[in-house]
């Protein structure tokens, strides 16, 4: 029995197409709006480090309106106490072992060949400028239905491909999957313990008072 293409079906298909065609820009805008107030979360998963696969766990603090993000490393143990602060123009890397705060202009802070940079985690808009993303469907994750965005990284990002999962009900990233050219996973990071928080710029910019500040 053949299905007759009635005007109703065409309309239904058209509507579905429209929903699927919801653009990446729209989704990112929803995320941006949803994450405009201060928030914090824990990012955890596996990262391909210089010495093989390592567990990564980091606390992310965000003040999106001020363009200010702080990532505190909890795992691996060798990075515990290290943190990265991303401001509008600079990237600060604090290194616990040497008690140094390395301040670099954002354009200088890109480090190649390290798999991925943590900057994109808190700042989705900045990340999307470095990856040409497209919507590749939806997937059901434990937190609920999520959009799946995939894209090729522009050159010199340290990774070739990115898969990004965004929760539909409360538009925010749930999972980042960074891959190299051969499709090998460089980092698979999940966002957990997400909550709205009252944060101040000085809290996010805090560093030990005896740290040696190095500007490069």
């Amino acid at each position, binding site marked *: 029995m053949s299905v007759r293409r009635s005007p109703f079906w065409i309309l239904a298909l058209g509507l579905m197409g429209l929903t699927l065609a919801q653009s990446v820009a729209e989704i990112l805008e929803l995320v941006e709006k949803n994450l405009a107030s201060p928030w914090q979360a824990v990012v955890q998963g596996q990262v391909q480090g210089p010495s093989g696969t390592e567990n990564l766990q980091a606390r992310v603090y965000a003040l999106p309106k001020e363009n200010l993000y702080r990532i505190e490393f909890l795992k691996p*143990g060798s990075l515990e106490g290290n943190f990265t602060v991303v401001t509008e123009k600079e990237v600060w890397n604090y290194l616990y072992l040497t008690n140094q705060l390395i301040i670099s202009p954002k354009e200088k802070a890109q480090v190649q060949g390290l798999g991925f940079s943590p900057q994109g985690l808190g700042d989705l808009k900045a990340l999307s400028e470095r990856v040409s993303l497209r919507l590749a469907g939806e997937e059901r994750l434990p937190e609920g239905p999520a959009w799946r965005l995939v894209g090729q990284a522009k050159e010199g990002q340290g990774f070739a491909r990115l898969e990004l999962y965004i929760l539909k009900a409360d538009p925010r990233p749930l999972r980042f999957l960074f891959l190299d050219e051969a499709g090998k996973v460089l980092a698979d990071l999940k966002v957990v313990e997400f909550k709205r928080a009252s944060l101040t710029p000085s809290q996010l910019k805090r560093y030990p008072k005896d740290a040696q500040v190095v500007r490069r």
Partner: protein
Amino acid sequence: MRKVALLFLLGLALAQGRLEAGLYGAPGGVTPALEAAFALGEGEVYLKGQVGRGALGYLGSLSLGPLGYLAYGAQGEVGEGGLGGALFLEGGAGPLAAEGRLGYRPQGAFPLFPEAGFFGRLALRYRATPREVWGVEAAGNTPSRPATFGLQPGLYGVWRLEGSYAFRQEATYTLGLGVSSGPYALLGFKGEVGEEGEVLDLLLRLGGVNRLEAGLYLGEASLHLTLSYPWAGSLGVWLGDLGLEAGHQGSPYAWVRYTWRWP
């Protein structure tokens, strides 16, 4: 030729840089001392000079983001007594950190070139667990703290080898043993002492080396004290970019310096 020189100077003035100007006073008289540095590529070129001695050097760096940072450099010197030079390496990556310098100059000149003869230091540290760090340090004829700590009198002419173990429990405590003219013990404390996160850093060596080093960091301001037996010592204060230091090493001295940074 003059045009090229002018363009070169203009380029340096526009590049990111700093200029540190100071006056050093001791019973022999007052010595002006200048240090200028300009960003070049991933590092900086610097010139420093005072009456009797001058140096040209390069400090390069490599940032590994949150994983680590390495800085390295070399300087060549001309001055009274002849040529001199030094090599530097400093940094850390993951659980390992190293600091080293090695140099020679026939004659020292306070305050910018305090060491005379061969001088060197190599310190290695390994973070065995997130809260424990093992360290080993060999040093001779040179201070162990960064230059912000000042001249740190009392360690010139002293050679020593020490091992240390540091553990963190809120504050960080350090225990160690060393050998110099005789064996000595090392005790350290570093932790936050105020509500605003002020940091106190104390390190005591007793035995073959007798020395207290203390730093109090208040944010914009910091205080540095060194006290050694046989008697030598210094007290320094940084108020933003203004550094004041007074001390005694054979005779009293005072050093005032100010740093301008641009852009």
